[in-house]
């Protein structure tokens, strides 16, 4: 607290020197920003403090955080009242139907593999050039590499092969993923809502993956849609990977969202189910990364990833990357946040940043303070009003892909201090968002920051120190000072 006061004092002192006439405004903004990023409690409390209550014995929205979080689905569907928003449910099923009707051979294969493999294995491809090194050094295994000659027989179980070895050279990464998976079960909300799978609700239009026709036909009747277990696992695993390997932050998240999309392509899930899973998986991962008992393991995972066992491994193959194109990743990730479904709720709710969510950016934006990471989350998140995503805390609205690009707006004077000697993103980073807002950006420290967006922030830019400060894009006009 003392440190925060000190920092606030420094910020205000700077503002005083620079804008002697604007001091009251600067103070008012600080308060508004603090309000903007203040956490909001949900029915279950704060997810990061209650995540271990997601166990089968807890069956209510106040005792089980996974249920409380995903209870947003109750606005659309109730197991007793049925469809509360038939139009939205029809739209969601239509998205799945179209995906299954227009899927390519490559998508059929990918969604088949995603379906069959142990969930966590699916996320490895997000590591791209480092995937082979991960497979080798984490002892990662699967028994599914290709589509079968014939559709699988009904009742063929999911793969049981152990996805990776917690005692391997990358054991801390594996263990951290498994910590997230431990409280990542979706059973309680799934069996409360009992929302039927799209291929059973609309068998004429939602076409099962041709290799899974029998398996899906024979799936038990209590095998439900909302939320998706695969997609939850995808975000839990992908976000742990993003933490340990922030160099692949956006690619790992894009792969997580692709796994969600694979569930649509297979005909298994509605977009509502995988959107709920993103919200849920993100809450679970942030909780695990906030847990004081995991801090040593997290450091080990990060260090392992940055050793010769992964990022510096001779097995690194720069050409092995399904997620090499930034624009494609961004387009896909953004689309899959909402799948084009319209806003139906209040569209004017201010930003919501869940308690503890800033930990998800700790390695990607290491030079920002926790408060600044919360502002990065607040200024990049989705607007309110989308189906399923308006939980009380704000997990559904987080756009981690965009937040990895730094702030989305500068709501106040912002000092960015980068110490190049610490290496990685501390030495060199790029903010790709189109920065807006009335704040001033003050760049300090020896690291280099590139602003690569079409920037329109009006508070000005001040370079106090640094090897380099690039302004590489072509803003029409920098309305500055």
């Amino acid at each position, binding site marked *: 607290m003392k440190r925060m006061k000190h920092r606030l004092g420094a910020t205000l002192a700077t503002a005083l020197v620079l804008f002697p006439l604007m001091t009251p405004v600067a103070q008012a903004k600080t308060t508004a920003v603090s309000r903007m990023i203040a956490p909001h409690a949900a029915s279950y409390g704060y997810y990061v403090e209650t995540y271990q209550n997601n166990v089968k014995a807890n069956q209510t929205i106040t005792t089980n955080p996974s249920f409380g979080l995903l209870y947003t689905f109750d606005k659309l569907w109730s197991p007793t009242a049925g469809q509360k928003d038939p139009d939205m449910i029809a739209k969601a099923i239509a998205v799945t139907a179209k995906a299954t009707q227009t899927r390519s051979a490559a998508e059929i294969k990918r969604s088949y593999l995603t379906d069959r493999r142990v969930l966590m294995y699916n996320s490895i491809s997000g590591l791209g050039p480092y995937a082979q090194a991960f497979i080798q050094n984490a002892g990662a295994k699967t028994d599914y590499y290709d589509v079968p000659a014939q559709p699988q027989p009904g009742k063929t179980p999911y793969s049981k092969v152990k996805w990776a070895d917690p005692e391997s050279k990358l054991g801390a990464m594996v263990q951290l993923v498994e910590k997230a998976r431990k409280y990542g079960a979706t059973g309680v909300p799934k069996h409360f809502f009992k929302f039927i799978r799209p291929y059973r609700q609309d068998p004429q239009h939602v076409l099962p993956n041709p290799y899974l026709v029998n398996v899906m036909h024979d799936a038990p009747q209590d095998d439900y849609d909302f939320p998706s277990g695969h997609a939850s696992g995808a975000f839990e695993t992908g976000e742990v990977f993003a933490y340990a390997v922030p160099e692949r932050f956006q690619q790992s998240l894009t792969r997580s969202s692709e796994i969600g999309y694979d569930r649509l392509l297979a005909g298994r899930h509605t977009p509502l189910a995988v959107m709920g899973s993103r919200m849920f998986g993100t809450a679970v991962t942030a909780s695990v990364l906030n847990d004081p008992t995991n801090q040593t393991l997290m450091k080990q995972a990060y260090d392992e990833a940055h050793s010769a066992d992964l990022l510096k491994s001779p097995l690194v193959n720069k050409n092995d990357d399904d997620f090499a194109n930034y624009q494609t990743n961004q387009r896909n990730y953004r689309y899959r946040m909402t799948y084009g479904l319209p806003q139906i709720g209040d569209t004017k709710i201010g930003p919501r940043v869940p308690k503890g969510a800033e930990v998800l950016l700790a390695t990607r934006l290491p030079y920002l303070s926790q408060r600044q990471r919360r502002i990065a989350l607040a200024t990049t998140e989705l607007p309110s009003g989308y189906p399923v995503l308006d939980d009380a805390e704000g997990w559904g609205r987080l756009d981690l892909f965009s937040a990895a690009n730094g702030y989305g707006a500068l709501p106040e004077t912002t000092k960015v201090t980068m110490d190049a000697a610490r290496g990685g993103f501390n030495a060199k980073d790029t903010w790709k968002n189109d920065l807006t807002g009335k704040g001033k950006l003050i*760049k300090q420290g020896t690291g280099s920051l590139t602003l690569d967006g079409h920037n329109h922030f009006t508070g*000005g*830019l*001040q*370079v*106090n*120190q*640094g*090897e*380099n*400060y*690039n*302004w*590489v*894009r*072509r*803003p*029409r*006009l*920098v*309305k*500055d*000072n």
Partner: protein
Amino acid sequence: MKVQAGTLTTTAPVKLAKGYQQTQRGTLALTVTRGTALKIHGKARLAGTLRLTHVKGLNGRHVLVTFGSRHGKFAHVQGLPKGYHVKYTAHKLELVRR
């Protein structure tokens, strides 16, 4: 915009709406392409270093920076192409062949 110390690099032309201020320890690094690298609306307070990079295709005279008014000059200019010097006029900073 203010550069107290450190370097501001522009690799594409930039227009500044409300002036520019650079102090002694600051560096402005401009990529010299066909157009004017930096257009400053308002006052330019200049000091410190100007660094020119990727200079090519000059034709005797090239406008680097424009401004509404100016106070001070860059103390050091790095990366000058052979045979050129910088020339300040009322609203321009130009590269001019000797």
